[in-house]
């Protein structure tokens, strides 16, 4: 295991300490088990937006606490759902009387715990609802879309939810906007190398020096095809074909594109992916109304990348472009 870390059992907590030391104006550690991260002061008069999930995906999840983004976030161990208590604490912090939306990746543990937390919150007379992000087209066919994992599409859904809340919308409206984003986002990844869970100490999966796996999940879940690494244009084409087959773009359709590095992929290579993706989406007739290239949803030292496409309507586009600011995102 080749990591710049101290004891594996302290990994998550020490990273959180580093984050708050670096960005005290943005993040504050809270909660009985110190696993709830939140903004320093709650913003009154708006719907709260929170999230939570396993660690090792920075900026996902907790990194997206910020203006026009999340108010608080529950932090689990590496690749493991937080328990429901920090989720409940996040809900309690974020609630300002207008209710709380939880943006949740489609993983069993995360879903179940957010369910429990929302139930518990109800006992405190807090209305908390959930929007599930399940954007990974590799994880299941369109007929089983609800079984898809949540991957980098989380970023778009969070951005939309945060902007809707910041705009003063009601919980119902915020949830509807976030749900619309979740319904209209699709992602697909490609992995070139494994990550290592600190407590496990060895790579999560093996992959040969000349292999890639299209559709692999951000924890190393099996993808749709493992094969020889090919030129980036061909890799991009295979990925984009899957995205467009799953939800085609009409001529003139406006889309947002996220080219996301999984953690160990040089930014140079992400620009090569964007270069091809732009050609392909535009050839398909789409207009890229918004795009980002960088590391937005990672798997520690996993090499690889993902492409996300969000099919926009006017409201989604407005919300996506609305002001937001955190150390990892700004518009």
């Amino acid at each position, binding site marked *: 295991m080749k990591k710049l870390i101290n004891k594996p059992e302290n990994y998550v907590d020490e990273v959180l300490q580093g984050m708050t030391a670096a960005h005290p104006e943005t993040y504050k550690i809270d909660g009985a088990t110190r696993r709830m991260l939140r903004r320093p002061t709650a913003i009154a008069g708006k719907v709260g937006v929170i999230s939570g999930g396993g660690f090792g995906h920075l900026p996902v999840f907790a990194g997206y606490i910020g203006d026009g983004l999340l108010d608080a976030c529950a932090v689990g161990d590496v*690749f*493991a759902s937080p328990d429901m*208590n920090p989720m409940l604490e996040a809900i309690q912090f974020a609630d300002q009387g207008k209710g709380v939306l939880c943006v949740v990746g489609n993983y069993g543990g995360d879903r179940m715990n957010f369910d*429990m937390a929302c139930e518990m919150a109800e006992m405190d007379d807090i209305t908390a609802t959930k929007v599930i992000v399940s954007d990974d087209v590799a994880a299941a066919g369109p007929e089983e879309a609800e079984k898809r994992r949540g991957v980098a599409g989380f970023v778009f859904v969070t951005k939309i939810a945060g902007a809707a809340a910041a705009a003063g919308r009601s919980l119902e409206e915020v949830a509807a906007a976030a749900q619309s984003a979740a319904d209209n986002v699709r992602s697909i990844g490609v992995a070139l190398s494994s990550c290592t869970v600190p407590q496990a100490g060895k790579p999560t999966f093996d992959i040969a020096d000349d292999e890639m796996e299209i559709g692999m999940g951000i924890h190393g879940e099996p993808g749709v095809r493992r094969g020889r690494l090919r030129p980036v244009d061909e890799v991009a084409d295979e990925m984009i074909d899957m995205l467009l087959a799953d939800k085609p773009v009409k001529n003139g359709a406006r889309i947002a594109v996220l080219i996301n590095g999984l953690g160990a992929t040089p930014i140079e290579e992400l620009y090569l992916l964007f270069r091809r993706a732009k050609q392909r989406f535009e050839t398909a007739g789409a207009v890229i109304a918004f795009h980002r290239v960088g590391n937005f949803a990672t798997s520690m030292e996993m090499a690889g990348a993902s492409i996300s496409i969000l099919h926009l309507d006017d409201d989604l586009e407005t919300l996506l472009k609305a002001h937001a600011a955190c150390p990892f995102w700004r518009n």
Partner: protein
Amino acid sequence: MALTTETLKLAIEKIHSKITPIGDEMNSLDGKLGDGDLGVTLVNGFNNLNGIKDDLPEDTGMALFAMAKSVTAVSGSSFGTLLATALMAAGKNAKGQRAIAWSDIGTPLQAAQDAMIARGGANLGDKTMLDVMDAIIAAVTDIDDPDRLRTAAIKATIQTVEEFRNKPNKIGRARVYADKSIGMDDPGMMALLRLLECL
């Protein structure tokens, strides 16, 4: 004879005294198909329960509810979440009762089972602890002696484990390795067996 807060306290004590070897066994079993944390979940969960067992309220429903709350600290794993869910549902079901007749034990168990199905989204037949729960509920209904109850539950559990051994896992982490899971016992099922054996 009936289930009371005192029974719950004794059960926690018994399980807690044997949880370390059970934890080791379950970690390695879970490690074969999953992430190897089932034992950690059990050990931490029963450590927490042991810490609150002397403060459990006399209302059996409220006692179950308190147990649920203390188990939520291990709800980061599926088993922990489902255990908390089950305890909470059983607690709601039994609320207001100081004792539950052994012959009525099927009622809160069924409530727990329903809640776990609703929360976890698994179906019967997916090779999870739900299949064991289902067999237990069927086996214990109308028995009003705790020893016979225990024997019947263990027998039902063992039968279910054997029945599912050669079927594939259809949910949770193990689903990814559905083929590999054929011929292997489901860790969650085995965990329930070991817990029952403690009683």
